[in-house]
């Protein structure tokens, strides 16, 4: 396995809790999009509409193809700012 053909996958917040992990490295096997990673790592066939994804810290579409060295993140809708509005 080529060590550069690896991606980092991160989960945050309720998603990390429900899946039971926060970060993993995975080797890429051929052309892989973010949705493919989601399916493989969580066993869920589709990305729920409320789950957001980011590639290298930028929001992106789940059909985006990943590249070796990428950091891919999945997380629930963001809730920063003041408390309850």
């Amino acid at each position, binding site marked *: 396995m080529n060590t550069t053909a690896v991606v980092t996958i991160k989960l945050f917040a309720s998603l990390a809790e429900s899946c039971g992990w926060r970060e993993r490295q995975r080797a890429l096997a051929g052309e892989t999009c973010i949705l493919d990673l989601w399916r493989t790592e969580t066993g869920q066939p589709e990305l729920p509409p409320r789950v957001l994804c*980011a590639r290298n810290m930028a929001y992106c579409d789940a059909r985006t193809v990943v590249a070796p060295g990428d950091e891919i993140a999945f997380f*629930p809708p963001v809730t*920063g700012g003041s408390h309850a509005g």
Partner: protein
Amino acid sequence: MPVSVRDVAFEPYSEVVAYQQQRFASAGAFGASAVFVGTMRDFNEGDAVRGMTLEHYPGMTERHLEAICQDAAARWPLLDSLIVHRVGEVEPGDAIVLVAVWSAHRAEAFEACRHLMEDLKSRAPFWKKERLVDGTRWVARNTAGYTAGQSEPTKG
């Protein structure tokens, strides 16, 4: 346009005063300052809240706060802006977020400050988990902004 994410309590108005003093050498450079402070309440969605854990995505969060400031600076004639956001274990009464904007005139200070807060809530990766008497719950969405949203408690 500095942004910072803090895992310890901060005093928002001291931050404003300290930044203002080091940033504006000449008194009289700005005419308007608009400041918003979001504070942790001890009550939410009808339940007493004992505390909160604020999670973020180190790296992406800071990057998005910077982008939010740059967007506001492109849209309004601002002299400067400042964002401080708390993460980690938060107690009621603690400041969660500080947004401050300096400009020549008041209209842009008010508008940009509001916009920065709305933009921060919709784009910056932060997640809140409340500690209640009988468990914890993730805050599912922010309410009472430009468009009222809905919170979906998932007590457990």
